C-alpha cells in the first residue's frame, strides 16, 4: 500500500512534479478518494479515460469525477487492458474463473459470447427498465441477453464498416463490387495505390470482408451454432466473396500490400499521406480523418455504404464494445450498470461513437452531422458476428485463407477446404 509513496518519491527524484502533494481524484489506477470505503475494480480500454488524446482524457476525467460525486463513498480502481483482444480475453476469463477478475469490465462485443459461455457474467436486469431495453437495436438486444432473458452486458456503442473515398478523385460512391474495382483502377491510373483494406492476420480482415459474404445472404453458422459456411449454398457465396478480393488484388485495383495491412490506422496513414483515394474503414475513422488531415483535405473525404455484389445486396459488419459485471456483489453490479450508462450516453456523445439505443441519436447534437445519416442508413444492413465460441477460430481461418489467396499461395477452393477442415476439427474439440 506504499505505492503512492514510491510514486511521489520517484516523481520528485525524476521530475520534481509537485502535483502529487494534493490528492488527485483521477490517477493512473483509480478514480475517487483513495480512502473511500467501497471500491469497484473496472477494467477499461485505453481509448477514453486514459486516452493519449488529451481532450478525450480530460472530458472523461470530468465525467468520472461527476460520477464519483454522485456516488459518495465509492472509489473505482481502474485497470487498463491492452489492445491484444484475444490475450486479454483469455486472461480475464482465467482471472474471473479464479475469482480474481475485475468487478466490472469492458468486453469486445464479438467476445461476449465466450464470456456468456464461461458463465462469469452477472445479470443487470434490475437497473434497466423495459423501455430502456426495448430502446436497444434488435441485434444489440439479442447479443446482450441470455436464453432466460437476462441482460448480461451493456453494449454501449456499435460500429460499422464503410467505404471512404476522396471525392475529388472518386466523385461518385461505388455501389457494387464491379464499380469499386473500376473506380479503384481509375485511381491507380492517377498514381494512387488503389483501394486499401485490412488483409493481414487481424480480426479486422475477416470482419470487414464478411460484409461481402453476408451481403449475398451467406451464413457462418446455423441455428444450432455449428459452422456451415463451407457447405451447400454458403460455399458458393463464400467463394464468390473470396474471388472478389482476389480479383481486386490480381487486377491491381488493390495493391499487393493489403496482405500486410493489419490495422485501420494503416489506411488512415495512407489517406493522410495522400497515397490512396479509397479504403474500407470503420465509422469512427470519420472523426479521425477530421482531426488528422488538414481541414481542406479532410473535407474531400466522404463515407458511403460498402459496395455489394449488386446495388441492393448490401451488408456491413457491426461491432463495438460492451460493459459487463463480473462480480456477484449486488452493490457492485449496480455501480457497474451506472458506469455503463455513463458511457452509453455522454461518453458516446463526446467521442461521436454510435450509440446502441435509437433515442440517443435524437438526444445529442453530436449526431446531427450528415455522416450519421450514412451510418444509420448502413446500420439497416448491419450484421453482428455470430455469438458462438467458435467464431474466433472461424475468423482466424478466414484471415489465413484471404492472405493465402491474395498473396497467390493458394486457390480459393483449396484454401476454403483447408479452413473448413481446421474449423471442423476445432469445433469438434469445443
Amino acid at each position: 500500500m506504499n505505492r503512492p509513496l514510491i510514486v511521489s518519491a520517484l516523481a520528485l527524484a525524476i521530475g520534481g512534479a509537485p502535483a502529487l502533494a494534493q490528492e488527485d481524484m483521477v490517477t493512473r489506477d483509480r478514480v475517487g478518494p483513495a480512502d473511500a470505503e467501497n471500491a469497484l475494480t473496472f477494467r477499461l480500454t485505453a481509448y477514453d479515460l486514459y486516452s493519449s488524446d488529451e481532450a478525450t482524457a480530460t472530458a472523461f476525467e470530468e465525467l468520472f469525477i461527476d460520477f464519483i460525486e454522485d456516488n459518495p463513498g465509492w472509489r473505482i480502481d481502474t485497470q487498463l487492458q491492452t489492445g491484444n483482444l484475444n490475450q486479454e480475453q483469455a486472461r480475464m476469463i482465467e482471472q474471473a474463473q479464479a475469482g480474481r477478475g475485475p468487478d466490472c469490465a469492458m468486453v469486445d462485443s464479438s467476445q461476449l459470447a465466450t464470456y456468456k459461455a464461461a458463465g462469469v457474467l452477472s445479470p443487470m436486469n434490475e437497473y434497466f427498465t423495459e423501455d430502456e431495453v426495448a430502446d436497444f437495436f434488435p441485434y444489440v438486444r439479442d447479443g446482450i441477453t441470455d436464453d432466460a432473458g437476462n441482460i448480461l452486458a451493456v453494449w454501449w456503442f456499435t460500429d460499422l464498416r464503410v467505404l471512404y473515398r476522396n471525392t475529388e478523385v472518386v466523385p461518385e460512391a461505388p455501389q457494387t463490387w464491379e464499380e469499386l474495382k473500376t473506380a479503384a483502377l481509375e485511381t491507380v491510373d492517377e498514381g494512387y495505390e488503389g483501394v486499401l483494406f485490412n488483409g493481414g492476420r487481424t480480426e479486422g480482415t475477416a470482419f470487414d470482408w464478411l460484409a461481402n459474404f453476408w451481403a449475398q445472404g451467406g451464413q457462418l453458422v446455423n441455428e444450432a451454432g455449428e459452422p456451415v459456411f463451407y457447405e451447400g449454398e454458403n460455399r458458393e457465396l463464400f467463394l464468390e466473396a473470396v474471388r472478389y478480393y482476389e480479383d481486386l488484388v490480381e487486377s491491381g485495383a488493390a495493391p499487393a500490400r493489403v496482405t500486410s495491412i493489419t490495422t485501420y490506422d494503416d489506411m488512415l496513414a495512407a489517406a493522410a499521406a495522400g497515397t490512396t483515394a479509397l479504403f474500407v474503414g470503420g465509422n469512427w475513422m470519420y472523426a479521425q480523418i477530421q482531426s488528422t488531415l488538414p481541414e481542406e483535405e479532410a473535407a474531400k473525404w466522404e463515407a458511403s455504404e460498402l459496395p455489394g455484389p449488386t446495388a441492393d445486396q448490401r451488408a456491413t459488419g457491426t461491432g463495438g464494445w460492451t460493459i459487463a459485471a463480473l462480480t456477484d456483489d449486488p452493490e457492485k453490479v449496480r455501480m457497474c450498470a451506472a458506469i455503463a450508462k455513463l458511457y452509453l450516453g455522454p461518453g458516446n456523445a463526446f467521442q461521436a461513437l454510435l450509440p446502441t439505443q435509437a433515442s440517443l441519436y435524437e438526444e445529442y447534437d453530436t449526431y446531427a452531422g450528415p455522416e450519421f445519416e450514412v451510418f444509420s442508413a448502413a446500420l439497416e444492413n448491419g450484421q453482428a458476428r455470430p455469438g458462438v465460441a467458435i467464431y474466433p477460430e472461424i475468423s482466424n481461418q478466414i484471415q489465413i485463407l484471404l492472405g493465402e489467396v491474395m498473396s497467390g499461395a493458394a486457390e480459393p477452393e483449396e484454401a476454403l477446404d483447408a479452413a473448413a477442415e481446421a474449423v471442423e476439427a476445432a469445433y469438434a474439440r469445443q
Partner: protein
Amino acid sequence: MIQSRRSRIGNALTYAAVIPLAAFFLIPVIWLVSLSVRTPQEVFLGASRLIPEAPTLANFGQVLTDGGFRLYLWNSVKLAFLGAAGAVAFAAPASYAFSRMTFRGKPALMMGILAVQMVSGLVILIPLYRYMDRLGLLETHFGTTLLYISAGIPVTVWLLKTSFDAVPMELEEAAAIDGLGRFETFLRITLPLAAPGVASALILNVILNWSQFLIPFVMLSESAKWPISVAIFNYAGATNATTTQLLAAACLVAVVPTLIVFLALQRLIVRALTSGALKG
C-alpha cells in the same frame, strides 16, 4: 616496417566491414529517432523527411509528462535488477558444483537444466497462473520477480559454469591448503576471480528481464505495476496513425535509460576482461 603496413591494410579492411555492420544496427534506431521528433504531418512523408523540417521535442514532452511512464520505467528497473541478482545468486553455487565437482548424473542434470527452458512460456504460464494464485503471489512484484529468477536460472547456470571453468584450479587448491572450506573458497577465491563472467551473466539477465513481456503481462493486471515492455505494448495498441511519432518517442524513452546504464557497465566489464586477472 612491413608489419605496420600490413596492419594498416588490415585496419582499412576492418573498417570496411565495420561500417556496413554498424549501419545495419544503427539505421532502425536513426529511423526511430527521426520519427520521434517529427510532427504528425511529417510522419507520412517517409524517408524524404529523415531530418524533419520542423523537429520537435513535444512528443517526448507528452510521453514524459505522462506520470505513468516514469512509474513503468521504475517498475522495469526494479524487476529487471532484482530478477537478475536473484538468478545469479541462486545459480552461482550450482554452477560451481557443476564446474568443480564430479558426481553421478552431472551431465544429465546439466542437460536437464537447459532442457526445462525449452518449454514454451505461454503454456506453462497458465498452470503457473493458477499456482501463483493459490500462493497469493499474483499481482505482486515479488511473485513476478520469482518468475524472472526462474526464467534466468538455466542460462545463468551454464554461463557461470563456463566462467568458473576458466578460473585456474591451482588457486583453489592453494586456498584449500590454507584451510579454507569449500564454500569460503568459492566465495573468496572463485567468485572474485570470475567477476567478469558474473558481471556479464548479471547484465545478460538484466537485458533479458528488461524485454520480458509474457510474465508481467500475465501476472500483473494493474497498470501501476507494469514494466515498460507491457506499457509499450499497450501504448502501441492505444495509439493510432496520428501518434506513430509518440510511439517512437515512447520506445526511445524505454530504451535510453538502459543504454546509458549498459554503456557504463560495458566499460567496467571490458576493463575486467582485459586486466589480465584471468590469464594468470
